[in-house]
């Protein structure tokens, strides 16, 4: 392939030059905007309760469903609490759950992917079949089951989702792991006598990082939607803890009564953050594909 044509790709150029900043830059405007949205949500997840202008937990039923006023730009929710404050405080539980799901699914999935790719043979076949079985269970179903067994709450729901997502991660990463496994530099290390474990940890996984990061980012969005749905159903985060998914369900009566704003605002927060994760994740995925060629 002609040397010059290979060098003419701008995006790949930006990536190889700038490290993490270069990576962000190479995702384009959409990627940058998404990253900004995610950054804001993350900051709120940490500092939300502190920056909320009013107490997000104190009910004041006399003010229920009053529309936006000068001091309360988003109005009041069904229990008379300031909606904006509820949203800001709700970021925490809305973001932590998906984080736990992603951390769990990625850790387990990566481990399984790398081990099966390294050993191949019967181990690979047996584990793949096991994963196929797990695939049959949709995340929400497992979460409902977990709630029935262990009681409702964020922990049970998050664990159930992590288990449900893990086979998908393992599938996607197994392909990449197999590709790395087949590379001559891995063979060179084997000939040197390096152990499988050290090759996997020091070489194979680091070379899969772009894909892992991309996958984790996209997955965060899915986990957020699933957890919001679970919380909406009452099986996840329990009121009165502020949470965007719970806010949709508890303010739902307001929609029919002509006060849609609290539920809508919470819904928009979810949608906005999920889209941001999806967009950024897909851009990162593109970069990972381009880099691996």
């Amino acid at each position, binding site marked *: *392939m*002609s*040397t*010059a044509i290979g*060098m*003419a790709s*701008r995006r790949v150029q930006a990536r190889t030059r700038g490290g993490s900043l270069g990576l962000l830059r190479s995702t384009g405007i959409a990627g940058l905007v998404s990253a900004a949205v995610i950054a804001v949500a993350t900051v709120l997840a940490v500092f939300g309760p502190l920056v909320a202008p009013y107490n997000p937990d104190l009910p004041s039923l006399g003010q229920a469903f009053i529309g936006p006023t000068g001091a309360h730009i988003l109005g009041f929710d069904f229990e008379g609490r300031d909606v904006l404050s509820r949203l800001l405080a709700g970021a925490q539980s809305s973001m932590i759950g998906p984080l736990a799901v992603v951390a769990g699914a990625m850790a387990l999935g990566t481990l399984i992917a790398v081990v099966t790719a390294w050993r191949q043979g019967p181990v690979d076949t047996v584990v793949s079949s096991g994963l196929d079985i797990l695939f049959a269970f949709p995340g929400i179903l497992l979460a409902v089951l977990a709630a029935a067994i262990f009681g409702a709450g964020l922990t049970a729901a998050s664990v159930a989702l992590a288990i449900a997502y893990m086979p998908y991660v393992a599938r996607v990463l197994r392909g990449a792991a197999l590709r790395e496994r087949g590379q001559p530099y891995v063979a060179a290390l084997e000939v040197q006598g390096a152990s499988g474990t050290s090759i996997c940890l020091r070489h194979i996984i680091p070379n899969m990082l772009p894909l892992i990061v991309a996958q984790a980012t996209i997955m965060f969005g899915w986990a957020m939607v699933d957890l919001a749905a679970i919380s909406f159903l009452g099986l996840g985060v329990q009121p009165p803890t502020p949470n965007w998914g719970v806010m949709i369900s508890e303010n739902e009566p307001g929609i029919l009564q002509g006060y849609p704003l609290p539920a809508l605002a919470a819904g928009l927060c979810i949608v906005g953050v999920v889209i941001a994760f999806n967009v950024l994740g897909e851009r990162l995925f593109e970069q990972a594909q381009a880099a691996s060629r």
Partner: protein
Amino acid sequence: MSGGSRLNSLPDRGAPSEGQAVTVPAGGEPLLSVKNLTVLLPVETRERAVLRDVCLDISAGEAVGLVGESGSGKSMTARAIDRLLPKGAQVQGQIRFAGSDVTGLAGSQLRAYRNRVAMIFQDPRAHVNPVRRIGDFMTEALRTNLGVSGTDASRQAADMLSQVGIEDAQRRLHQYPHELSGGMLQRVMIAAALLTEPALLLADEPTTALDVTTQAEVMAILDELRGRYGLAMLFITHDLELAAAICDRTIVMYAGQVVEVRRSELLHSDPLHPYTAALAAARPDIGQKAARLRAIPGRPLSAFEAPATECAFAPRCRFAEDACHEAVPPLTELDGGLSRCVRVTELRGQLEAAHA
């Protein structure tokens, strides 16, 4: 197009005879004429020249070799001729085929041009659709561009397959690319390229990925078919010995420029550029082991790294003098060939011996 173009009539394609030779443009002009070809590509947000001032001629029926290392621009030259440059490429200079300029062609005219100038590549698998059968792939140009019927096209394809030495051609037409070895697939590509009866074949390192015995076989087939169809050929390779052995003339490129054009039989004994001599000397000799090879210091320069103010090879050349660093040497005629060395007249005769 010049007179006698076969594209205007629905061809009755029986076995080709000597009489159906290539149409030669009037006036003794060469079949392909490239003058002062400069190509700029956007590289790292800047415009860089990947070909500089390339000049070459190919006459009807002639085999010309194009030799160079990485970054020399040899592949890019072929792509420029076949109008296969990447988007954003700027082309300056002339490319004339059969008397007319081809740099501005588009649409059906471009397709017609590509029927007359065929190209084959180093890795056939990368240039063929793996989910289509060989027969479909081979007959596509005939059926869509030339309006040949399906059965006629298949018949011609099968005939061409046996000419390239593939037995059981009818069965092969129904096979998929992955069922053929690299050598066989390359033969299929050659056959496919020749179906539209081109006047010029651009071969971009067609045998580099093949075993040496398969390469010999493929070269023999190319040689035979060239003779039979009066085909001209531009044969691109990094292998100086291969080019010199099978081509009438050889062009040597370095850093996006033509540095020498020479009759092949004189290329080793009387080269016209220090780079050619150094390249030949750097190669190990199959007949004799040397204590150490005469390696060229440094590494081959890519076209876009080449300076615009001096001879691109000067930093690595053992004959470089002040004059070589003052300006880019022009391409000058000498003894029926071309040379881009300012010192060639005084160095001639020393080049081969100095590197022996």
